[in-house]
């Protein structure tokens, strides 16, 4: 036994600095005191960590970190005690009891493959405690959310709880293709409002498309399979960056959108990319004053795409003087309508 706690605080911290993040995490599980010591060390390097949540067929929180030359990762999963009994032969390490810094009771098993399995009476309650534990240890909010093929109601409850914690989620990949009920879809969409950059896939039914009037306000929103992005819904999407593919929008819809922008709407939009049914730029610009340019100066725009300088750009101007460039690019077989707003 090495009497670590008898060292002076600086030497003790120096020792803990030598542990890799997974070892430090395991050390934090020893007791409340070890948790406090580990936290002191972890918060000082937390710029090199990012936390991600996976809500799929199981619930886990991952810790990614950057060492001298590589990114490494370990994860902690929440299970029911029932799962533990079923899978006990898989894991070789012994089961341990811990209170996750007083937030227990729980049982956990660590493995050499950088994973921690935790076992709870109720996996959702347990997962919330696990998230709290990890967020406290690194003093960081959740950075990335992965949401797919999950028990929607349980996962919504987890999201609801995450939204009560400090900080917002930087990036979310949310796949709601498995959600059949419009009501559940609404519940989930309500809980991902705080995601900054959202990658959204969903297959809503006609009733939802007709009735949903929510605002989609994100820093960046990417929608694939966006057949449900009709003009009324597009009008409710006020994002800095908006990418929608697979829409059924017509040239006339885009024309209406541009006219609303010219009249002062969508003040947040900096870059928009729409995969429209058939792009006819003259129909899109019908009734709009524009200036045609061959040479494009990407520097004056907030966000620039990698485009060919020989393409034709259509410069339009808002009533308040703000300028945007309109152009068409190719994506596979499809043409894509793009709009970039000047800085």
């Amino acid at each position, binding site marked *: *036994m*090495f*009497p*670590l*706690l*008898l*060292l*002076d605080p*600086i*030497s003790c911290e*120096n*020792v*803990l*600095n*030598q*542990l*890799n*993040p997974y*070892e430090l995490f*395991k*050390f934090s*599980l*020893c*007791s*409340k*005191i*070890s948790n406090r010591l580990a936290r002191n060390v972890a918060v*000082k*390097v937390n*710029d*090199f960590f990012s936390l991600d949540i996976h809500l799929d067929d199981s619930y886990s929180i991952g810790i990614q*970190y*950057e*060492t*001298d*030359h590589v990114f490494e990762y370990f994860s902690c999963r929440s299970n029911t005690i029932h799962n533990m009994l079923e899978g006990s032969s898989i894991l070789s*390490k*012994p089961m*341990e009891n*811990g*209170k996750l810094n*007083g937030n227990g009771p729980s049982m*956990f098993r*660590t493995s*050499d493959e950088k994973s921690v399995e935790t076992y709870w009476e109720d996996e959702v309650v347990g997962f919330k405690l696990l998230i709290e534990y990890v967020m406290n240890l690194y003093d960081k909010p959740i950075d990335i959310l992965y949401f797919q093929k999950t028990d929607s109601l349980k996962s919504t409850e987890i999201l609801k709880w995450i939204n009560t914690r400090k900080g917002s989620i930087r990036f979310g990949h949310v796949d709601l293709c498995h959600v059949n009920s419009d009501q559940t879809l609404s519940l989930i969409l309500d809980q991902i409002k705080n995601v900054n950059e959202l990658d959204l896939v969903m297959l809503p039914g006609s009733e939802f498309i007709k009735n949903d009037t929510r605002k989609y306000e994100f820093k960046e929103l990417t929608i694939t399979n966006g057949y449900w992005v009709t003009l009324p819904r597009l009008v409710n999407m006020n994002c800095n960056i908006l990418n929608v593919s697979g829409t059924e929008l017509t040239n006339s819809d885009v024309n209406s959108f541009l006219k609303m922008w010219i009249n002062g709407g969508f003040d947040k939009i900096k870059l928009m990319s729409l995969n429209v049914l058939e792009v006819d730029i003259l129909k899109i610009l019908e009734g709009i004053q524009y200036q045609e340019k061959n040479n494009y100066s990407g520097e004056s725009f907030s966000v620039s795409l990698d485009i060919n300088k020989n393409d034709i750009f259509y410069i339009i101007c808002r009533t308040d003087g703000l300028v945007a460039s309109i152009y068409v690019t190719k994506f596979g077989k499809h043409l894509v309508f793009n709009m970039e707003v000047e800085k």
Partner: protein
Amino acid sequence: MSVEPEVPIVQVEEVRENPVLYKIISSDNHVFTISEHAVKLSKTLWDLITNLGLTAENALDNPIPVENVNGKNMETIVQFCERHKYDEEEPEYTNYIREFVLPEWDRQLLSIDNEELFQLILATNYLDIQKLMDYCCRVIGDMAKDKTPEELRIIYGIPTDAEDDALERSASDSPGPSG
């Protein structure tokens, strides 16, 4: 994971330089000779030498007593400092998560039992030798490899929460200085 630092060959340079030597006396009266470059690795000793005004001429006539370090630890410390006296200065610590592997020579030097390692750390801390402190801490950190939390608790002598609570209770139950 990181590259083992190259250990310079010091003997040739030492002969050429005709180095200044200092004498150190441990708490149990063992006398050690150490070169100027090596002693500079200890901030405490170098400050002492500077403050005492020891020079090349009078250094060997004025042994420095170090009452907090015994002969065994001093021997390890002197060996370490002589070995590393020409090492390049470490880049400033940037709070970056780094993993380094202890050089084999140092690993062997520090292959001692935990009680000795603990005493060596106390001595290193007192003499303020950053590099040796880092290396000792690396040895202790390596004990955590592939261990479970419960194993770590035992290896590092961490009391359980229940033990801590009991200790706290007994401390609060015991009469204070006035009682």
